[in-house]
């Protein structure tokens, strides 16, 4: 932590990204004759509706660049060793933004508009930010960053996934520019957000060397709990909170059986998978929940133009990542997974850690369930088929070692985003739907392989 603050240069991508997002959302970017002073967000919308006289190719690249810079900055923040690698990504983000300016500039010249006069404050600020993002790479770093090397870049699974993500987005975007539209990117981020949130809890479970197969059924159950509560007239905040409580209770029960009764977690959760699923069907008899009050739809709300699932995903991921790295409890999870005996000797109570980790997992399943339940105006009475596999896939693709003791939360979240990018991207480049599943399988394999090659390099 201190290392990050030791050299403010490490924080540059974070600050620049934040500034870029703010100017993207709030500062007038251009003074359009027909639209007046316009921010990029309204410009993007106007373009989608063909209200704009000019064809602003690549307009959506700008927010992506800004957003990527922000993410990368946060990533450096949680992982100081990667200062260099992240700054290189920020460089790419800056170049992406600059490319946009070039396209925009050419468009404007072609329209014969008076260039200087029609540009707003946001335009200049973003231009400066883009340049700064590019030049920050030449600034000296703290020692932790070391010299930039490919090895540094490949130092962990997060960068491997991030590279895969950037590669996919750029190549699909080249083939089908609409893929890069802000709305689509936000939809992709949002689509798997609840899986990413559930993956946070699952990551913790897997880091301790356990697994939870029941999480899909649990999310299905908790979503119905939330919906039924609010329909029965309970206050909305309580209906949002209750899934977390019930999730924690179920988690505590699972944790108790695993920790104190010494039944392997795969057996317990395999059993709970059946119990929760059967119980849900008997309880609901297949009836969907509808007619929730208007204020209930948490996942449909937006702040700063970004929908809540994305915010939840990002904020929870960052908080959990920091917590796992710096808090004693988070560290104890790693210790238990890495070497249970050593953990016990160094004074951790194994049983207590297991209880904690399953309770946390239940709470994250509860949050995921609320996001799932409030996304649509109908809550289905059965959980999405194969949800537990989707969550586990995100976690293991994210680089969490199934043998315990290794892995990070951020990797799992990035993997959840990657999986949804693959799903959406395959549609945009017209892969035959018959083969989408096979392509997904291959891409998962490739990501895992990248990770393995990296690890072998490190070993050698």
């Amino acid at each position, binding site marked *: 932590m201190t290392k990050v603050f030791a050299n403010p240069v490490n924080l540059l991508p974070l600050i620049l990204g934040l500034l870029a997002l703010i100017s993207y959302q709030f500062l007038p970017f251009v003074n359009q004759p027909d639209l007046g002073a316009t921010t990029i967000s309204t410009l993007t919308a106007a373009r989608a509706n063909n209200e704009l006289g000019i064809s602003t190719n690549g307009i959506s690249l700008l927010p992506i660049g800004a957003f990527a810079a922000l993410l990368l900055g946060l990533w450096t923040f949680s992982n100081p060793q990667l200062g260099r690698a992240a700054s290189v990504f920020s460089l790419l983000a800056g170049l992406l933004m600059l490319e946009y300016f070039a396209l925009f500039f050419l468009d404007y010249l072609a329209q014969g508009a008076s260039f200087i006069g029609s540009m707003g404050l946001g335009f200049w600020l973003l231009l400066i930010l883009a340049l700064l993002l590019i030049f920050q790479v030449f600034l000296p770093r703290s020692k932790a960053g070391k010299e930039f090397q490919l090895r540094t870049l490949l130092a962990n699974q997060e960068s491997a996934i991030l590279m895969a993500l950037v590669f996919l987005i750029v190549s699909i975007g080249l083939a089908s520019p609409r893929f890069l539209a802000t709305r689509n990117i936000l939809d992709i981020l949002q689509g798997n957000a609840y899986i990413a949130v559930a993956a946070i809890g699952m990551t913790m479970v897997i880091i301790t060397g356990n697994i939870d*197969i029941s999480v899909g059924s649990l999310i299905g159950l908790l979503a119905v709990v939330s919906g039924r509560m609010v329909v029965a007239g309970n206050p909305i905040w309580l209906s949002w909170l209750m899934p977390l409580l019930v999730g924690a209770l179920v988690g505590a029960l699972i944790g108790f059986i695993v920790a104190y009764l010494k039944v*392997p977690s795969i057996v317990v959760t*395999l059993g709970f998978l059946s*119990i929760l699923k059967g119980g849900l069907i*008997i309880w609901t008899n297949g009836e969907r929940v509808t007619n929730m009050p208007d204020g209930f739809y948490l996942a449909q709300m937006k702040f700063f133009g970004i929908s809540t699932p994305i915010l939840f995903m990002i904020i929870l991921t960052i908080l959990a990542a920091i917590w796992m790295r710096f808090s004693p409890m988070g560290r104890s999870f790693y210790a238990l997974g890495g070497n249970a005996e050593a953990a016990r000797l160094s004074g951790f109570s194994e049983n207590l850690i297991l209880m904690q980790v399953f309770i946390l997992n239940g709470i994250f399943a509860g949050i995921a369930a609320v996001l799932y339940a409030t996304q649509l105006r109908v809550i289905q009475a059965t959980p999405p088929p194969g949800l537990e596999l989707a969550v586990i896939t995100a976690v293991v693709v994210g680089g969490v070692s*199934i*043998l315990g003791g290794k892995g990070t939360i951020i990797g799992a979240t990035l993997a959840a985003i990657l999986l949804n990018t693959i799903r959406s991207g395959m549609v945009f480049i017209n892969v035959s739907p018959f083969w989408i599943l*096979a392509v997904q*399988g291959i891409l998962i*394999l490739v990501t895992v392989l990248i990770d393995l090659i990296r690890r072998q390099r490190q070993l050698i």
Partner: protein
Amino acid sequence: MALDTAKVENTMAKRLRNLLFSQEGILFIILVLVIIVLSGRNANFLSASNLLNQGRLMSEVGLVALPMTYIIITAGIDLSVGSILGLSAILLGVFWKNLGVPLELAIILALIVGTVAGYVNGLFIVRLNVPPLIMTLATLAFYRGLAQGISEAKSVTGYPEWFYIFGQKSVMGLPTQLWFFIIATIISIIILRTTTLGRYLYAIGNNPVGARFSGLPVARTLLVIYSYSGFMAALAAVIFVSRVTTTRSDMGTGLELDVIAAVVLGGTSIFGGKGGIIGTLIGLVLIQLLKNGLALSGVTSDATTIVIGLVLILAILVNNFIQRRRDS
């Protein structure tokens, strides 16, 4: 003389107690209890035709559970069995109908494809040290995707009458697939108990690093059992296709969880090094008879799912409890 008899009786009693209180013994007692309770609820439960029929339905999961036991003993896992089953089934149909291969040859080709699919799993696990769970999670999607892509969502039907012998007919009074299962079970028990391969499996499961350093052919052993798993999934596919007279790309979805449930219920430790085929067999029969017996006594499937979940946890709990009492 009298002393001798007492001694013999004593050791006999000890042995009996050991057998009774072993993992398999306890499971067996639970199984007997379940049978007694369920047979009281419906007279047809214990009828020969019902039991044979349940044997027929159980065989596919059973065939796959045998190699799965081996794999879990080595502390591995194979999640892709359901997808291998789907892929082999689809290819059986495609080889025969679309490519015009004689059905006999198509069956053999499907078995080869299944084995190769398992071998590929093993190859990545052994050569690249991909953890089995991750590898088979990836191929779970990939093999299913291949099945879907190759079949283009079309099912193949209209097999010749003789083909139905595998899935619908009986040989010498027993359903054909039950013969396959019985023979495969016996072979699997013998291999696990008497051959060096069997000993290697336990050694790898107990201490993979140690096994490698003491010169055991770890890589070859793992390759063999993952290929075996693929082969059995393909064999189950042939039987399944013969039983339901059609092929679909979604065949075998979720099979992996049924199989793993049977194996872990049978007392094979997910951490490796412990367990055996007999336990798996009892676990398998227990789940199948529970499903059937509860349905016969008027319990619906959703409630049955709950009961099976509870039994899974409780059986392991009871066993843990007794083993600990014995140890202390």
